[in-house]
């Protein structure tokens, strides 16, 4: 079929241009590129659908997909893909990306101008494989800061496919990409490359792959020399770029970097722990929810239902679906999670997190992880449920298992931390914190190294780009925070409602008392707590911070040691219902059961040790 209206910019200009889809099948467009080059920004610009934009390599774990309008009533199917350095199927992530790219009718290859030497390897491979390609050169503005210049016309000539310059963060060049999208075509394979299908087969064999990769690398390096103009003198490098580089290097310094990390964590404590969890939550939960909203719901419902009835208890009682879950989700969790995600998004967008990954790599490699795993761990301080999902970004199944177990057992979430901060004043203040965090760290190391020993295989080492530091972009930060908070509200909140429903049913049927009686030997004998404390643990199974919050009411009856014992036990105890469900989905039945049982054991063992040690020391 030949397009009659050659005038429109979207119509293919020649027969060898972008593949004409069959009438029934929409054109399939896939974004491909190295990690952290801005594929997700391009995806957003073309589709209007927001994909996770970040300044951390490897954040696209699930590929975003959307239908886009090409004009003239034509539509296409656009797919984002995880960042890869080349097609070789070396990791799970690469296999996902490779499958998407090889089935594409048209590939938008996004490359970053500052790292063009690295990025063109994938570009050349796409051309060698005979795919229909258009190249979008992003971060042209950042290239300019180094004083280097890139000759786009010459690059287009060499590659034989359309090349468009962009600064996607500023929104520059996206229109040009849209205009030339349908000009995508097959380009020039590297000199002397065998035909595409033979090449694809050859690159599946290790020795041939190494040879061909070597050839391609040389070919690219020669090509880059002809299109990149270096500055006459190094002083041409602009001030801001060298300051950012210098600062980046300081943040990697063992002592200065560690101090910076402590400052970052203290600021997190102050902002999320003190201001949000303390002041803001007191205002929203204490004043707004408990004094206005909850009584209003109870009164309103009291008009229709008898207050002593079962239904009223289920809906608006002590653990009611309408009252307690609303009070917790809106009053406590939402402000905490929102505050935490804003802070994290700022850290992520300015490029601090990869530095943190480098600093923590040494320690994490001792528990069978690498520096990348710092991201799920830090996300876990916000919400363990969401963090468990993010363990997908780790390279091997072995690492994902270790990370999921550590998250489920040893990482306290922001909701918990919020309540714990309030209780620590009772449990010995600074000493209480030292013992609490010390125990969690020891257990983190212990569980990690045991898993590292017993799990088969080997963990992968770190291999990560360090993107330049930059000022956080308000739009990125707000969009990222919004996406994460939305995810939390839609995925975790329904499970919390279910949790409070279960507790309500247990309370109404008397199951709660029964469970408390069953648990009391453990609670009284092992942990040396009053029998009522069993209720706290039962509630902790549903939601960890329900449990901790329950301690508030008991705290007046408990000694400092007893509060500390309860806090340690509750933290290690079964993750909340929401994260247990996600754990089940991510790691399967067997693994998640083992992790859950291990967390029970760890909780009561460590809690028992604390209680008995204090007893022997006559505290």
């Amino acid at each position, binding site marked *: 079929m030949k397009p009659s209206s050659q005038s429109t910019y979207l119509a293919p200009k020649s027969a060898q241009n972008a593949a004409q889809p069959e009438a029934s099948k929409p054109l399939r467009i896939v974004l491909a590129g190295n990690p952290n080059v801005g594929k997700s920004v391009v995806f957003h610009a073309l589709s209007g659908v927001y994909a996770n934009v970040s300044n951390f390599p490897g954040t696209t774990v699930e590929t975003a997909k959307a239908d886009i309008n090409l004009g003239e009533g034509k539509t296409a199917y656009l797919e984002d893909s995880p960042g890869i350095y080349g097609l070789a199927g070396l990791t799970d992530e690469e296999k996902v990306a490779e499958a998407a790219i090889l089935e594409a009718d048209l590939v938008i290859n996004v490359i970053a101008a500052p790292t063009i030497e690295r990025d063109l390897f994938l570009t050349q491979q796409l051309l060698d494989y005979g795919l229909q390609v258009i190249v979008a050169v992003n971060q042209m503005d950042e290239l300019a800061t180094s004083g280097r210049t890139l000759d786009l016309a010459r690059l287009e000539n060499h590659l034989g496919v359309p090349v468009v310059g962009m600064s996607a963060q500023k929104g520059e060049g996206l229109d040009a990409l849209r205009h030339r999208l349908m000009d995508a075509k097959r380009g020039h394979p590297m000199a002397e490359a065998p035909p595409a299908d033979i090449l694809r087969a050859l690159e599946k064999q290790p020795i041939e792959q190494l040879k061909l990769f070597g050839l391609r690398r040389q070919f690219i*390096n020669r090509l880059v020399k002809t299109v990149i103009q270096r500055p006459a003198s190094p002083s041409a490098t602009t001030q801001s770029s060298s300051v950012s580089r210098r600062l980046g290097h300081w943040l990697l310094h063992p002592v200065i970097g560690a101090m910076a990390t402590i400052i970052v964590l203290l600021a997190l404590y102050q902002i999320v722990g003190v201001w949000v969890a303390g002041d803001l939550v007191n205002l929203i939960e204490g004043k707004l929810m408990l004094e206005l909203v909850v009584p209003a719901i109870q009164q309103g419902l009291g008009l229709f239902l008898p207050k002593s009835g079962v239904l009223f208890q289920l809906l608006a009682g002590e653990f009611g679906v309408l009252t307690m879950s609303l009070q917790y989700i809106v009053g406590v969790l939402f402000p905490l999670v929102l505050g935490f995600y804003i802070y994290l998004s700022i850290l992520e967008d300015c490029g601090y997190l990869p530095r943190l990954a480098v600093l923590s790599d*040494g320690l994490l*490699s001792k528990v069978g992880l690498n520096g990348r795993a710092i991201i799920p761990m830090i996300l876990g301080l916000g919400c363990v449920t969401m963090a468990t999902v993010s363990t997908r970004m780790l390279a091997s199944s072995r690492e994902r298992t270790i990370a999921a177990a550590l998250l489920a057992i040893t990482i306290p979430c922001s909701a918990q931390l919020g309540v714990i901060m309030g209780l620590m004043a009772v449990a010995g203040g600074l000493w209480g914190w030292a013992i609490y965090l010390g125990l969690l760290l020891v257990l983190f190391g212990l569980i990690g190294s045991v898993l590292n020993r017993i799990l088969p295989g080997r963990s992968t080492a770190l291999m990560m780009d360090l993107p330049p530091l930059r000022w956080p972009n308000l739009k990125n930060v707000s969009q990222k925070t919004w996406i994460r908070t939305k995810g939390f509200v839609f995925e975790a909140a329904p499970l919390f409602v279910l949790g409070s429903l279960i507790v309500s049913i247990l309370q109404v049927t008397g199951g709660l008392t029964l469970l408390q009686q069953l648990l009391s030997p453990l609670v009284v004998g092992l942990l040396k707590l009053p029998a009522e404390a069993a209720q706290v643990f039962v509630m902790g199974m549903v939601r960890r911070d329900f449990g901790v919050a329950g301690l508030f009411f008991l705290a007046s009856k408990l000694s400092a040691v007893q509060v500390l014992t309860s806090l340690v036990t509750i933290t290690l105890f079964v993750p909340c219902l929401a994260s247990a469900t996600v754990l089940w989905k991510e790691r399967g039945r067997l693994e998640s059961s083992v992790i859950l049982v291990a967390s029970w054991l760890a909780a009561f063992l460590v809690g028992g040790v604390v209680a008995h040690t204090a007893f022997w020391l006559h505290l």
Partner: protein
Amino acid sequence: MTVSQVFSRIPTHFNRVVLPLLNNPLTEGMATIKQEESTYQPSAFVSAISLNRAIEGSQVDIIQILDDTLAPQLLRLGIMPGVHLHIIRKTPGGGPIVIQIEDNPQSELAIGQDYARQIQVQQVQAVADSSP
């Protein structure tokens, strides 16, 4: 025979990879890639150390990559025999080595210990950087 002589006799990875191509029937015609064009010229006095033992702030040349599954990964990133690296930072306690590839001043890469051990380099210049 001195240590450096022994090392200079070991065929480097680069030679193992590229030279056989010249007589490979499938890639015939590639002989246009002349050996002189290759960026790496083995020096007569090569003393190899692994990357994790290079000095912070110094510069090194890559001689060889010992692990055959790591080599293609590194090739994609532009790391191969003959490439000149700046050692920006070494993190203590088994942490990664942060490097910058000479021809690519805006790209910094953190390489974990396990990988760094597989990369044989030659120290060319031990100049302390101005950074801390």
